């Protein structure tokens, strides 16, 4: 959420402090050229070795292998380190629905917009403010005078409610990693004027949908490390059993990603659909049981639409009946009809964010990308979020741009 800086910790503040961890000087001073460091791996020799092995394994397949990851942080690392430019041509690594802001569906944004217009204070994560609903974003109604507050955490939203008597609705977005925080905050106790509009999503079910999409070429999935920290890798076993597609849990370091992709290609080659955990320092089979317990004490999985993906059975996390008293959907009469009296802006109709989220198109195939649609004036959600494919490609360049860039693995 790079736009949201209010009350935050600036880069400078962090840079100027010394590391308390005894890691050899801590953060480097701001004067050190960042650009020179950007594309360096911590272990270039290992990166080169993995890169060569990946190329050899993919080339040996004699055909294109498509793999999907479902994590904005994975895409950031792939783009930031120029990994895609170093992949062999026969390897297609696609970002699927891994951006929580992006897959928040239009009607969910509309609910927040309608509530804000009804005079309720909406507290939400910074990126959500720019995400378009059917015709309006929360930012649009904020400009009209509605009360929309950017928060970094659910706790800050609860504090907002404590400081006023007016109703405060926390528009809660994010995957299970973030939903557990909302659950814990509710279990810890919230004031009577605090409500939750849940747009939380649960990753495992959407992998089923993507795997079943007609024409899907995806032969294996890279699962996101920190979401799996909560769910555990065991959650993917049933998926593997049903779809006969391998799943590899991966960390966020470029080396982690290269190693995981290599493992996936090998599993595809050997026809071995299984779950492999390549991020054992964070992920166990059972996951964080304590967090899971709290998550499902507060939320229940329910079917619902994800932007661009279609209906995902059990893909949404909705508040359980015991939490009806904090559920904004049950406590407020949310009237969406006034929002649907207008046609969506013409540009929105050209946005292919949905296809990009589903992994069947990439940003370069969108005629708005980098022209009418840029981070300052995004047309679609994928250009809003720091985890959106379009914003990541816009900042770091996509595939063709990176072909000219220095290759990551040959940097000393």
């Amino acid at each position: 959420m790079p736009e949201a800086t209010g009350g935050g910790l600036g880069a400078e503040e962090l840079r100027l402090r010394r590391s308390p961890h005894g890691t050899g000087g801590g953060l480097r001073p701001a004067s050190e050229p960042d650009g020179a460091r950007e594309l360096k791996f911590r272990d270039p020799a290992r990166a080169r070795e993995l890169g060569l092995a990946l190329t050899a394994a993919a080339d040996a397949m004699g055909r294109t292998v498509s793999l999907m990851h479902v994590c904005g942080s994975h895409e950031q690392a792939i783009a930031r380190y120029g990994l895609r430019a170093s992949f062999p041509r026969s390897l297609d690594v696609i970002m699927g629905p891994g951006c929580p802001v992006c897959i928040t569906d239009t009607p969910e944004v509309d609910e927040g917009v309608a509530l804000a217009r009804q005079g309720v204070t909406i507290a939400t994560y910074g990126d959500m403010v720019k995400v378009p609903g059917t015709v309006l974003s929360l930012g649009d109604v904020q400009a009209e005078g509605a009360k929309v507050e950017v928060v970094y955490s659910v706790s800050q939203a609860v504090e907002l409610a404590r400081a006023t008597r007016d109703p405060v609705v926390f528009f809660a977005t994010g995957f299970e990693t973030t939903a557990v925080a909302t659950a814990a905050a509710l279990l810890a106790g919230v004031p009577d004027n605090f409500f939750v509009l849940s747009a939380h999503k649960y990753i495992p079910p959407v992998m089923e949908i993507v795997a079943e999409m007609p024409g899907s070429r995806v032969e294996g999935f890279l699962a996101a490390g920190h979401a799996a920290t909560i769910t555990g890798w065991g959650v993917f076993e049933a998926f593997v059993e049903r779809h006969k597609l391998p799943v590899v849990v991966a960390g966020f370091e470029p080396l982690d990603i290269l190693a995981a992709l290599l493992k996936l290609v090998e599993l595809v080659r050997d026809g071995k659909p299984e779950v492999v955990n390549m991020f054992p320092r964070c992920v166990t089979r059972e996951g964080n049981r304590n967090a899971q317990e709290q998550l499902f004490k507060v939320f229940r999985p329910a079917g619902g639409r994800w932007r661009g993906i279609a209906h995902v059975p059990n893909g949404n996390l909705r508040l359980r009946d015991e939490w009806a008293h904090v559920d904004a959907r049950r406590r407020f009469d949310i009237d969406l009809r006034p929002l649907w009296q207008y046609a969506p802006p013409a540009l929105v109709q050209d946005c292919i964010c949905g296809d990009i989220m589903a992994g069947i198109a990439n940003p370069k195939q969108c005629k708005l990308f980098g022209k009418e649609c840029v981070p300052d004036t995004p047309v679609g959600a994928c250009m809003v979020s720091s985890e959106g494919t379009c914003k990541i490609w816009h900042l770091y360049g996509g595939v063709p741009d990176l072909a000219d860039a220095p290759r990551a693995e040959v940097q000393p």
Partner: protein
Amino acid sequence: MCLGVPGRIVSIDGVVATVDFWGVRRAVRLELVDEPVQPGDYVLNHVGFAIRRIPEEDIQGTLDLYESLLHGEGDLMAADVRSELAATPEQGPDA
């Protein structure tokens, strides 16, 4: 947004810990952590909650990774890590 950020527990008061992130102290809630923690332990913090105790042998590697991530203006991963700290309130129990 799901990247989290590692820090060292300085002190604990009930379910709230004061955690040190590169010299910046923040109050981190402990309701979600996967196992009991004590001062000196490292935890992975996400939107103000510790979601995992980092095992001893993984501390150095984790810190090195994040230090390498934190460099760069206008960098999305660095921005995500910084926003994790912004998500964590400043008042620790001993602040």
